[in-house]
């Protein structure tokens, strides 16, 4: 019986993330089938979540917040600066200055034609060149999910990504698929997702670190809402 194999003694270290890889895998496996141990784990996770409050306090320099808010401000404004209207406004200004005698209608027409050409050019070539720098990881199915396929698309800067799967079996309400980001034998959750009745699903990946810093990826079946570590059967996997 499962009770003979309970891993209660390992749960405190599991919650702390300090088990060695083999033990952690054994605990994860056990948790998948043992609601008793899952319930036992919860308060230890709560404890681990509060420990930061017991760190000796240190005061960050005042400039740190200023730097942070400047960085945020740059992030907010940078995309605006790259948008089309900036180009158009410059072009319109140039035409107005260089051709004051033209009628208003001609000016508007030329500005519109030129701007739309620039916009189309940016869309066609800009997106194409960006797409070429994006990385795509093909995920291969395991014996547990024959016929399933998956693709993981990573943004040009390696930060973000989206997972698309097809052919995965729809799960009952108590289970979901969970993406694992694997590095140095450690597995971080990339998010949980479900698939539609046709087995198709999409997940905007939530990675604790830049996505491209994880060389391998796996998908397992987990209790709804996800698990701290993989506990269920692996259905898809792949590497950068």
């Amino acid at each position, binding site marked *: 019986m499962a009770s003979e194999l309970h891993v209660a*003694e390992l749960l*405190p*270290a599991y*919650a*702390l*993330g*300090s*088990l*060695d890889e083999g033990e952690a895998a054994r605990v994860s496996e056990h948790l998948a089938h043992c609601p008793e141990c899952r319930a036992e784990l*919860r*308060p*230890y996770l*709560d*404890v*681990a*979540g*509060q*420990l*930061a*409050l*017991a*760190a*000796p*306090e*240190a*005061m*960050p*320099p005042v400039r*740190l*917040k200023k*730097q*942070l*808010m400047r*960085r*945020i*401000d740059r*992030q*907010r404004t940078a995309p605006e600066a790259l948008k089309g209207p900036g180009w158009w406004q410059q072009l319109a200004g140039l035409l107005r200055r260089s051709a004051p005698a033209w009628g208003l209608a001609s000016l508007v027409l030329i500005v519109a034609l030129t701007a739309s050409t620039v916009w189309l050019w940016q869309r066609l070539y800009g997106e194409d060149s960006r797409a070429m720098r994006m990385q795509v990881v093909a995920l291969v199915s395991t014996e547990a999910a024959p016929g399933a396929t998956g693709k993981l698309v990573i943004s040009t800067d390696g930060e973000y990504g989206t997972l698309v799967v097809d052919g995965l079996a729809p799960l009952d309400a108590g289970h979901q698929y969970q993406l694992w980001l694997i590095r*140095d034998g450690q597995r*971080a959750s990339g*998010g949980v997702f479900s698939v539609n009745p046709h087995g198709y699903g999409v997940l*905007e990946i*939530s990675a*604790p*670190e830049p996505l491209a810093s994880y060389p391998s990826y796996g998908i397992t079946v987990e209790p709804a*809402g996800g698990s701290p570590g993989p506990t269920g059967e692996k259905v898809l996997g792949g590497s950068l």
Partner: protein
Amino acid sequence: MATDYHKLDDESLIRLIVRARPEALSELYDRYGRLVFSLAVNAVGDAATAEEITQDVFVRVWERASQYRAEQAQVSTWLTSIARHRAIDQLRRQGVRPEGQSVAWADLSPQAEPTAVGPEQATELSIQRQRVRAAVAQLPAEQKQVLALAYFQGYTQTEIAESLSLPLGTVKTRIRLAMEKLRALLPAED
């Protein structure tokens, strides 16, 4: 009418960050910037790296606030979890987790709270902090030591045993006893 960010709870701030309101991030930093920085500096032992980590944590919050799930953790726990992983990852990347570096727990002496934090949040955080510190303070020194290495520096039990030249079984027992004691002393988060 202007929003009074001081009066908003953490989850409301997160919702406003999702809507790209920098004032909400500013308020969140006022509440937890010090906590995140303290955790980072204690983990990596270097103020400059801790500043980078702190800034990265809040930039990440800015970029991914929509992924926060209130049912899984409090906002403060979410922030410190990101900070801890980021710090441990930094230590692993450097390949240096200096054995001599002192990672320690705070003592129980009262410390000044950041003045920018709203009174309600400051009180709540202060009470929570005191409760956790009081619980950790009740642990025997040898349990506090192994717990600090595991929590702040991400050591596995085997690494701790090697680092402290202790039998692995001893380390396992200390961590288990420490966590069991803390579990008994600390009520679950809301």
